[in-house]
């Protein structure tokens, strides 16, 4: 049984390697996007987790990488598998929560935008959320974030009392549509 565990570890390593290659593609796309007059948060700059901006201001726009994952069926499907693999399911279950908070309601402690969810997964949060930065490739974190957001989509919450904050629309750019993006679902033939 342990050999199965090791096998899955090896598989994860393989996934990571493949994802690293894809990540390189993703980076070049980001650079392309930067050439299109979009005001970008520098890569790695955290999203804000408040709506208060002293002296005026607003939430910085999400990293444009977000748009290729948010609502993308392939990313969500990949994210669901990773969510199980990396034991997210052990704390948050299939959205109800348990050890960690519910992900299927309209309460977002650290923000419900996909880039905020990305930050939560990557950086961890003080009340028990571990930090996965450096443990998972960035694209896998985006995929998990896409799945987490999908758990609270109106159809998932059966039109609950409130709503998950909508993802801001992408600005008019020549960003490729999600469908045209390379498949990020690889190495997940578990």
């Amino acid at each position, binding site marked *: 049984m*342990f050999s*199965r565990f090791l096998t899955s570890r090896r598989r994860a390593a393989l996934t990571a390697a493949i994802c690293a290659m894809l990540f390189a593609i993703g980076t070049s796309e980001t650079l392309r996007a930067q050439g299109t007059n979009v005001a970008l948060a520098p890569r790695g700059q955290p999203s804000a987790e408040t709506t208060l901006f002293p002296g005026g201001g607003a939430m910085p726009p999400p990293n444009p990488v977000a748009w290729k994952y948010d609502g993308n069926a392939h990313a969500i499907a990949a994210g669901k598998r990773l969510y199980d693999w*990396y*034991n997210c399911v052990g704390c948050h279950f299939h959205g*109800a929560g348990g050890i960690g908070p*519910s992900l299927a309601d309209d309460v977002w402690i650290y923000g419900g935008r996909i880039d905020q969810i990305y930050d939560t997964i990557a950086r961890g949060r*003080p*009340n028990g959320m571990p930090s996965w930065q450096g443990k998972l490739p960035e694209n896998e974190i985006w995929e998990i974030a896409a799945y987490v957001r999908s758990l609270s989509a109106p159809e998932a919450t059966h039109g609950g009392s409130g709503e998950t904050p909508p993802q801001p629309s992408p600005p008019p750019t020549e960003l490729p549509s999600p469908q045209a993006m390379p498949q990020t679902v690889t190495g997940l033939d578990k």
Partner: protein
Amino acid sequence: MNRIRAIGLGAAMLAMAPAGLAVAAMPTPPEAAAPKDDGQWRMPAKNYAATRFSHLDEINTDTVKNLHADFTFSLATKAGAEAAPIVANGTMYVVTPYPNYVYALDLTKPGAPLKWEFIPKPAPASQGVACCDVVNRGVAFDDGKIFFNTLDDHTFALDAATGKMLWNAKVGDISTGESLTMAPLVVKGKVLVGNSGGEFGVRGWLTALDENTGKIAWRAYSTGPDKDVLIGSDFHPFYPQDRGKDLGVATWPPGAWKIGGGTVWGWIAYDPDLNLIYYGTGNPGPWNQEQRPGDNLWTTTIFARDPDTGAAKWAYQMNPHDEHDYDGVNEIVLVDMPVNGKMRKVLMHPDRNSYLYVIDRITGELISADAYGPLNALNGVDMKTGRPIVNPAKTTKVGAVVHDICPTASGGKDWQPSAFSPQTGLLYIPHENMCMDWEDVQTNYIEGTPYVGANVVMKPGPGGNRGEVTAWDPETRKPVWQIKEDLPVWSGALATAGGLVFYGTLDGWFKAVDAKTGKLEWQFKTGSGIVGQPIAFKSPDGHEKVAVLSGVGGWAGAIVSGNLNPQDPTGALGMVGVTKDLKQRTTAGGMLYVFSLPH
């Protein structure tokens, strides 16, 4: 010294007591483990025999109707308040769930004002490695000191008079998934502490700390080689399958014992005459049984150990190769009672697997195992080998959902402790009546994250009521009465010489029932669901009082304390599925309630 009673006293409460003169010795806790009651309550289980019985009788079946709230005190916390209030030298001590505040209340003054408080500041990240709410089950008082654990693996000793910290010992590491939720027990100058984390691939242990310094005197692991388990030449298990070298290694796939669970987060009893402590170990991990073929020793096992050295004397495994999360950590109550006409020193243990085990506490021989709750996962216990007879239809597996397994992962009962009354000879068991669907899934071990591998959905058991309180006669091996509660009963029980049994419900009712019949005599609606442990004590004013913490949470109340989403029944390890209505019935918030009679 054994009291006597008319045979059939219990059953007679339903009919007329027989006038027959036949007498028999009554189950009685050993006096050294349950000394004469001085009206204080220094450890959660009341005494080393763990009877949770008070000899006070001012509050009784006649007077209880006048019981009223004397004072209350806010805990300033929202998680499940599972602790027992502790009373010593005119002061009441309460530890809250995370962040584990400790309050000392002066019982000699009106309204019991705050004498001191201690704020231990556990690491907030520890909340991420607590499987079933961030609970704490109580402090222990001994030799002028208060001992308690914090969720982030520290044991503290405080001066009981001032609240000044005497020592602080780090005994575990949250980064490996370890946490502390249990109440320590102090035996012969040693503070006994065990870890939690059976859902995180933790390796279980019980540790003895020097009462005066906090230094580790010994540590007994629940898995691994004999030298780690403190199995030596004194170890004489009753059953042959438990004899052999390094069974804590050999009954696992290579290396799996290192992350195999067997945590020690429940209750410990102590027999001073035999100089033995008794406790049970938790479930093997992960829950997906296909990942750990073998008996998985020494998980779900009762150990008898020498408290001075930790050396194991005997062990008995309730659930070899457990497939249903049936931890063995539930309370162990010590009594001496006649078995087939001969007095035996026994322990009683209502296990998660719904069997009430009666075991010879000298030898570890199984005397009886009878179901007190819903059960189909097992078809009995082989009295020759001591091994359970597993029902193959309820064996869990990867790739299939096995339906209607009884009891649930949370058990016929969980940690919520029973009370034993030497007056009635009955064990009062607060428990659950629930079943579950279970699907094993492959899971990866990643240190510090859950290591479970099962999708579980719980549901009400036969009859539809989710909770029960059973008065069990250990001699006839049958229930004398049973109260059906709609919600799972997750509070401890208290029995008193006033002929009463107290317990609380998940929607906040604190109840007193007749110990002989189960008839409801009094109830009071507290502010939140009750998952605490009621106690009775003699106040400095000379009068009996009863205390309990209100504050829903724990595994059963997690849907409220954790604000979980009822639309996913797998939440909180399947508990959400069976408590969907709880948010409509109670709200979170911890509060101490103390009750007394008008005088």
